[in-house]
């Protein structure tokens, strides 16, 4: 154990001192951040110029809304109901890319349905949301005092109807109690928070009617649902799975790079024959564990450095550039590049869940695969001889990553389910599955199998290592490996 620790420390020191470590430390995050920046900058996929049909049956919004077209969105209003079926089939609607369904109760439920034919860009989605929101703002927070039009179109009308009594504007103005109740219902209509309010707690902090800022401070967000006309039941959301695959790719990269480091280190010790000196002081297993853990620690340190640098880079990007995405004026001015990747990176990835699971699968995956790399390192005559034997491992790793990709679109397929538990593929498939939400029991099962397989593999590799490390001048063959495993 003591010798394992000494070898681990030495190996870690060797890795950290190597130029490769520092090149990777700087280059890796720069490459990742550059890629993210380029993808942010390029914007997202989706049709950029669109014709939008607004179906506003009760003409709730169209009198104020959409009088002016945007550069790339052209609105056309109709004061009749257009069903999804009609929109999909009738030729008169074929020229429209999207349909905004303004339901008659929009002022109460704040829900809007947007049906699109071809995927909309995130930017256009944001603009549509913004336009709808802006219209509601105009409706609820006019600059002039409340007028008859507002009473008729707002919740105030309901109040009057519920009270089975019609009130004139002047009567409302005169009666504080009615005014108070109107205000309360009005806020209910705009914020949905009436239930929490009681009369004695009601705070008359707002002037009557609301100003835009007062409205914005209490407003209930508009719920805009985008529906693919071909998948009205809802299109599956693959975005988190892609994040999971991103984590799988990092695991792939680190296993490959650091697995190769283990191979090189062991093969180098063997070819320079220093292994003989070390084995006269330590057990082969101690040397093997020291190598694997030392290199692994360097990998973990490098990962945390990457994580820190990338997190800092993303924070700087957000502070200086991305935050403008959430500023409506930027969206209107077309300055922002809000897209799915930005959404994914900043809002959709649950880092608190992903990072711990990533570390578990990354560490176990590395240990599992490094056992194979160490077997190759110990079995071949020199580092160069080892190169040809890494292809099978690289193929398995690549296939595993591909199955991770496959499981994004086929999460219920037998292969995806099997590979989630199969130790060779589980680090890659698991990250995809976890990103979509999965029960703790299933993850624990996959981790447990991977853990036991890792222990078994390290034991087998330790046995091969012990028997092969002092064999020189032979060609590696499967039969030779089996003989070394069988030889205790």
């Amino acid at each position, binding site marked *: 154990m003591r*010798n394992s620790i*000494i*070898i681990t420390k*030495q190996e870690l020191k*060797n890795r950290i*001192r*190597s130029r490769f470590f520092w090149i990777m430390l700087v280059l890796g995050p720069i490459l990742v951040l550059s890629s993210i920046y380029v993808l942010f900058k390029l914007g997202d996929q989706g049709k950029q110029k669109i014709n939008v049909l607004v179906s506003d049956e009760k003409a709730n919004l169209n009198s104020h809304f959409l009088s002016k077209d945007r550069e790339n969105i052209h609105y056309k209003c109709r004061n009749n109901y257009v069903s999804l079926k009609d929109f999909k089939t009738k030729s008169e609607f074929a020229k429209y890319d999207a349909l905004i369904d303004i339901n008659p109760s929009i002022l109460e439920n704040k829900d809007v349905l947007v049906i699109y034919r071809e995927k909309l860009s995130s930017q256009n989605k944001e603009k549509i949301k913004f336009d709808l929101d802006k219209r509601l703002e105009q409706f609820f927070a006019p600059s002039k005092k409340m007028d008859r039009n507002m009473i008729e179109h707002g919740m105030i009308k309901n109040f009057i109807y519920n009270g089975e009594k019609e009130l004139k504007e002047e009567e409302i103005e005169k009666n504080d109690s009615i005014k108070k109740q109107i205000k309360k219902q009005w806020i209910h209509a705009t914020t949905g928070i009436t239930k929490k309010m009681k009369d004695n707690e009601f705070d008359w902090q707002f002037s009557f009617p609301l100003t835009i800022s007062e409205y914005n401070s209490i407003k209930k967000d508009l719920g805009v649902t985008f529906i693919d006309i071909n998948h009205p039941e809802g299109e599956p959301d693959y975005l988190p799975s892609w994040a999971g695959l991103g984590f799988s790719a990092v695991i792939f990269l680190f296993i490959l790079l650091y697995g190769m480091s283990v191979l090189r280190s062991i093969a180098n*010790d063997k070819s*320079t*024959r*220093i*292994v*003989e*000196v*070390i*084995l*006269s*002081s*330590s*057990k082969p297993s101690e040397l093997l564990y020291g190598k694997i853990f030392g290199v692994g620690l360097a990998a973990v340190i490098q990962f945390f450095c990457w994580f820190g640098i990338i997190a800092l880079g993303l924070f700087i990007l957000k502070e200086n550039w991305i935050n403008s995405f959430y500023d409506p004026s930027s969206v209107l001015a077309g300055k922002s590049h809000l897209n799915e990747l930005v959404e994914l990176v900043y809002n959709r990835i649950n880092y608190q869940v992903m990072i711990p699971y990533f570390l578990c699968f990354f560490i176990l995956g590395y240990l599992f695969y490094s056992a194979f790399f160490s077997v190759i390192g110990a079995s071949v005559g020199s580092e160069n001889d080892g190169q040809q034997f890494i292809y099978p491992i690289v193929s398995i790793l690549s296939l595993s990553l591909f199955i991770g990709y496959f499981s994004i679109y086929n999460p219920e397929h037998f292969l995806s389910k099997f590979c989630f538990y199969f130790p060779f593929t589980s680090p890659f498939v698991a990250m995809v599955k976890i990103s979509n939400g999965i029960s703790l029991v299933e993850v624990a099962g996959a981790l447990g199998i991977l853990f036991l397989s890792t222990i078994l593999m390290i034991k087998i590799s330790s046995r091969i290592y012990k028997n092969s490390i*002092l064999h020189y001048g032979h060609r590696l063959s499967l039969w030779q490996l089996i*003989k070394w495993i069988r*030889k205790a």
Partner: protein
Amino acid sequence: MSLLSVENVDKYYFRKIALNNISFEVKKGEIFGLLGPNGAGKTTLIRLINKITNPSKGTIKFNNEYLSDKHLTKIGYLPEERGLYTALSVEEHVIFLAMLKGLTKSEAKESLNYWLNKFEISNWKNKKIEQLSKGMAQKVQFICSVIHNPELLILDEPLSGFDPINIHLIVQILHELKKDGKTIILSTHDMKNVEEICDRILLLNHSKKIIEGSVSELREKHYTGLYGIRFKGNMIAFATALWTDFELIEKKEISKDKFEVIVKKRGDQKLDDFIKAMLDKVEINAVWNILPGMQEVFISLIDKNLSTENEK
């Protein structure tokens, strides 16, 4: 008292036998030569003593205890093919290996300073191994094997690659270590070194033990009847005096009428008979027995073993 005792040891690599029923003892404080042609099993035997591999059969005892991992800190090993971590400095490399032998970092540093001073190479401490010449690197490797002050030092071809000055230095250090009570197992093909350094030897051939004994005993045992004589006088008279009992093998004229000659007896004659035959013919300055070198002993034993095996 024996420090190391190897009893009936066999070692198989799969179905190939590498050592066949080997037994011998290494006494405390002696320099023990491990000899044999290539492939005889020397390296396998050394690996067994270092516990790099385990015997298939038989036992190895260290200080009358069965050899175990705890004894490894008392054994130093310099393999024939030596590797170094070239990216490390001399100090880092030696301290790493010393710590694996159970020393603390400060103990390792202290011991390293002692050995660097002894070799007068203190200024190398911070040099990268890759900057060292072959001879310099070999000194570092030697230091690695003695850094933890082992009771038993196993050296496989320790002098190969050294220049004569450094060979002398290393031999001197080996004698000093012996004087300090250390036991040394020396595996070498250089028989001159064996004669010079070793007290006893073990000869292996084809995985088997051929012979074990002290160097002087073996040389005497393989005495081939050669005498050396230095005399003043007439060479013809000397040759006539040899008659049929002795054969002139080699002659060298040192100066005018002064010769040094090697003769070989043909029968059961003794040194006395030889001296008597010469006394009134020439003026004898010196006469001595010429013992065979270890080289001759080695070749003779291997040839004998080979012919025995062929007969079988």
